[in-house]
């Protein structure tokens, strides 16, 4: 039997906890769909609640939080999530905003079928099969949100964030953006590429935090910014 200590609340981010297993620290979120796993995450019981351990190798957002980035997520926050894939990270955000809502946009039909399965047992996840580069195509389903989280390996990452920001982010809302330098320019130095993307964003956003995601995710940076 392994020794479980905690949970200890993260403080800034709602429903995010640290749990120590045999002395090793893990981030974890209370399972909104008890008894159900979303990927191959580990489940532990602590203080009578079921938690899902959040794996930084699988989720860029988790890696970023471990490196100290934070954002004012509340239990009723509304989030537009771009590039939801099969819902690995979506599911942890879903745990963190039990009274909120996540509009999860993904362009590729195959991962969406997994996302649908995840969403069945999670009422706060709204799966949307659409192209994030064309935000007007989901106008009828998505409302103004408090957060945009974007994780899309595409060329024009800043451009997509700007377009969605204009359409959906409330004034003062937060953008959390995973940037992959290699999708933008695989020849240039990552630092340069990140600078370029941050500059594009700074026309409409105030950049708040940025952090590189090595060793968990090579050539990646996470950036948070306020919509002004």
């Amino acid at each position, binding site marked *: 039997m392994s020794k479980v200590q905690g949970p200890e609340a993260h403080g800034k981010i709602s429903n995010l906890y640290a749990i120590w297993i045999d002395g090793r620290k893990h981030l974890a979120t209370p399972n909104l769909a008890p008894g159900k796993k979303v990927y191959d995450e580990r489940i532990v019981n602590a203080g009578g609640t079921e938690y899902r351990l959040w794996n930084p190798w699988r989720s860029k957002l988790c890696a970023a939080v471990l490196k100290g980035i934070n954002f004012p997520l509340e239990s009723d926050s509304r989030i537009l999530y771009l590039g939801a894939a099969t819902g690995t990270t979506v599911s942890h955000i879903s745990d963190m905003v039990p009274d909120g809502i996540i509009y999860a946009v993904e362009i590729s039909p195959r991962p*969406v079928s997994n996302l*649908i399965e995840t969403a069945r047992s999670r009422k706060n996840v709204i*799966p949307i099969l659409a192209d994030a580069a064309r935000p007007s195509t989901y106008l009828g389903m998505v409302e103004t949100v408090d957060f945009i989280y974007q994780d899309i390996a*595409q060329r024009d990452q800043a451009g997509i964030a700007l377009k969605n920001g204009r359409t959906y982010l409330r004034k003062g809302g937060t953008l959390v953006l995973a940037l992959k330098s290699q999708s933008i320019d695989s020849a240039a130095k990552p630092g340069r590429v990140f600078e370029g993307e941050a500059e594009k964003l700074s026309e409409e956003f105030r950049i708040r*935090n940025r952090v590189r995601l090595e060793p968990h995710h090579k050539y990646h940076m996470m950036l948070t910014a306020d919509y002004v």
Partner: protein
Amino acid sequence: MTLGGGGAIKESTLYSDGTFLQKFYPERQPARDERDRSVSLGELAVRAGFAESEHEYRSKLHMFALELAEQQIKKAITRDQIIMQAVDAQDTLNSTINLLKERFEEWSFIKRSDCIERDDMEMLEELRGQLDSLTKERNRLEEYITENMHGTAPNITMIAGPVLGARIISIAGGLERLSRMPSSTIQVLGAGKALFKHLQKGTPPPKHGILYQHHVVQGAPWWQQGKLARAVSSSLAVAARLDYHGGGLNNDVIKKMDKKVERIKAAHTKPSKKQKK
């Protein structure tokens, strides 16, 4: 909730790997409800009588979104199917163009020998026009395939190029099937007759099928080709799995392949005794 106002860097942490974390803090913290031009679909839905409460609206929206996405997936013609159509059309165009070209050249040859009439000349010009427009059509198709391959199968495109990559997907019968094939099968895709002969008559198994067209294999001396085709096909197997699951471009795959190729070339500068041409 933290909002705009002129923020300032308060804290900056430098990690040992050279990366950094900057924390900015705002000077002003307005209330959360400072929303202009914001839309609450829930409120609208209640006002329009679509739902009794925002809560009810959300649960209706949830059911609706699940149903809609499911329907869309069922109908979604996958991008790889479109690419397969395009690459097959390109193959047909290519062989038509080649046949016409041969005919055209033969005809021009007769023309040079000066024994044809004027309306024969006109016919020949017409044929040339046809040939030009078919060639243009083929080039447009190639651009179309290239564009689509970058989006749908970025990793396969990186390893094999858009057109060969598309042809491999087509022979495999789709991206999904390709993603489930072991690399030994990928290696002999398109070997058709040679594989058949191997099974029927016990001739040596084919070392490569369509992969022979890959520049790494094609440009190498014959005794390296089998090994190189194996390196390419195992990278393709990884690339197909990545593309099928839609995770975007991963440059590690090509880097690993390049290393393997280098190693093979360095280790086999001459044919081994066992190898026969």
